[in-house]
């Protein structure tokens, strides 16, 4: 039902962007990729081969996937969007003061 390697590859891709890239916006993108890999894993993990948990009018109860992880993932997506917006705001403000968004070029931070 699930292939773990895809989530590991996505997670490592995000971790690579977070650690190795010096552009701060790329770091935020890496953080979001890591987040997305976890969400994909939660959704794929709770998939038991059923349908989305939405009743259809005039049809009988059928085999559903678990709605709770999907609702929790929705919560996580919203919070991830909020944190990404706040991080990008801080990067904009940093750019106003230092004229760079590269974390190696900011004075006082390298070595």
């Amino acid at each position, binding site marked *: *039902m699930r292939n*773990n390697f895809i*989530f*590991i590859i996505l*997670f*490592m891709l995000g*971790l*690579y962007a977070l*650690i*190795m890239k010096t552009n701060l916006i790329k770091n935020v993108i890496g953080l979001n990729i890591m987040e997305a890999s976890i969400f994909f894993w939660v959704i794929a*993990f*709770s*998939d*038991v081969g059923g349908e*989305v*948990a*939405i*009743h*259809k*009018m005039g049809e009988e*109860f059928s085999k*559903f996937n*678990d*709605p*709770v992880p*999907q*609702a929790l993932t*929705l*919560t996580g997506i*919203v*919070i991830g969007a*909020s*944190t990404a*917006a*706040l991080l*990008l*705001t*801080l990067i*904009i*403000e940093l750019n*106003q003061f230092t004229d760079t968004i590269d974390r190696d070029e900011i004075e006082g931070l390298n070595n």
Partner: protein
Amino acid sequence: MHKYLKKTLVISVFILTAIALYENFLLVPEYTGLRTGVSDYIISSGLSDTGSLNLITAVLYDYRAFDSLGESTVIFGAVSGIVLILSRKMLPVSSRGLSFIVKRTFGLVTPFIALFSLYVITHGHLSPGGGFQGGVILAVISIIFSIVYGSAFDYRRYSPQVKTAMETMGAFTFLGLGVVGILMEGFFLKNLGFLTARTGTLISAGSIPYVNFGVGIKVGAGLAIIFYSMIQKTFKEDF
């Protein structure tokens, strides 16, 4: 030498993390054995409990409504922080807008985008969608206004005060329904049973459509405020 040391360190961290993730994924059992208790209860009796066809909406706004309240508080906190960091006084003119053809075409398309977002918000308990998703579509209107007509247009037509009032109204709708739940049903944010109508109609499922509406307005206004705050500072040199 220093560089090679750093590289080796990073690669070993990557390999160790990957191995740890793989081992932990192997330890996780199959899901079929886990979905007992809460999940089975929600799947079997969620429709009769809440009247919502969409069980995910039922989880979000009935069983775990307090969680959704905290979620919208997180959005409120993010909006407050962004506006605080990027606050400014002057009227922003970040872009002059696109050509006449684009402006006319977008004028024709705008009502349909608004209609679609209202559809997604109000049908959250019947079909896929809901407050958060529809609110994002609502915020898209404000973003395209800024791009197509120039950000001064967006400022004059929908000033930040209006957006702030809309966001506050959405939050108060949510909280007010929670307080009404205390008064009528005995618990904070309990679904209002006396509002329930025939299952499957637009106004059914107790207070879920109203909560959805409040959350949709709140998310739309909040994301519009975020975008608006960001674009002002970015293009300051265009004055």
